[in-house]
């Protein structure tokens, strides 16, 4: 029963103030993204900037709202490398075929 009680124990998390600060940060980055959308950048540059900003936002949500920062680090090691590995595999298998198909397309 000891392990069960341990699992049920409330985790120490961020304070209300910190959560609100994170939320304001998320809204601010969203505002920055909307502003950037009207800067008429090249689609590739634009996509790169937006994905990086979105990854920052995802990190903030996962670390604070989803408590990942306050869990045991072994959980991060279980989840994040596996996810990155699978996404890398998608890139490896997807892009060579995708670009081959692109060259076959009539222009």
């Amino acid at each position: 029963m000891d392990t069960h009680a341990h699992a049920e124990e409330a985790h120490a998390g961020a304070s209300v103030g910190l959560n609100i600060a994170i939320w304001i940060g998320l809204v601010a980055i969203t505002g920055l993204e909307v502003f950037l959308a009207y800067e008429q950048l090249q689609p590739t540059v634009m996509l790169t900037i937006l994905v990086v900003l979105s990854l920052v936002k995802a990190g903030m949500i996962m670390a604070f709202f989803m408590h990942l920062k306050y869990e045991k680090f072994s959980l991060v090691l279980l989840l994040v490398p596996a996810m990155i590995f699978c996404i890398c595999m998608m890139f490896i298998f997807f892009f060579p075929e995708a670009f081959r198909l692109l060259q076959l397309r009539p222009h």
Partner: protein
Amino acid sequence: MQDVKTDSTLSSPWSGGGSPFAMGSKKLGMWLFIVSDTLTFSVLLITYSYSRLTNPDWPRPFPINPAIIFSTTMTVVLLASSLTMVMAVMAAQRNDRKKTVLWMVATMIGGLLFTGLHLTEWFNMITKEHFTITGNPEGTPLFGAVFFGITGLHMTHVMIGVIYLGIVAVGYGRGKFSAEDVEVNGLYWHFVDLVWMFVFPLIYLMSVKY
């Protein structure tokens, strides 16, 4: 019966007694589900990004007024519902059942508002601008499949999330569910919000009408 494990056999990590991540099985299960769902959305968004960059005639159907103002409002509503969910989880950890249920209801209202705004936008696009899943008047017909496919799958997640919140709020209010159940529900809800943090910039902001 030998198959009923006693506390002494459960105390060793090698006999299943350890809790390597110091959390209950429900929470770990939700995390693993989130990883698999992340991969689903990753596939869709990676293939979308490829299509977006390789098709020069990609439609730009989102003018600032009303589409971008509308979708930015949706983003803020969804983010706000994430904050109310954080409050619900914190209230549940203090064992404040009444406040937990109230914050969860607020989260549900946010989710419903998001779905309502999104459906309004969909119907406007379909009926007034003639964007359908198979074609549109502005460019490559791929746009419809991508737009309705990705935002539709996300909206399905929001709707399931609202139902899930309703069930857990009622169960927690009656004392059937624990604070951990609210927290697991919170993980799902934040994940839905997280996915939108990718869908909104990639789908909407990459296709604004200047």
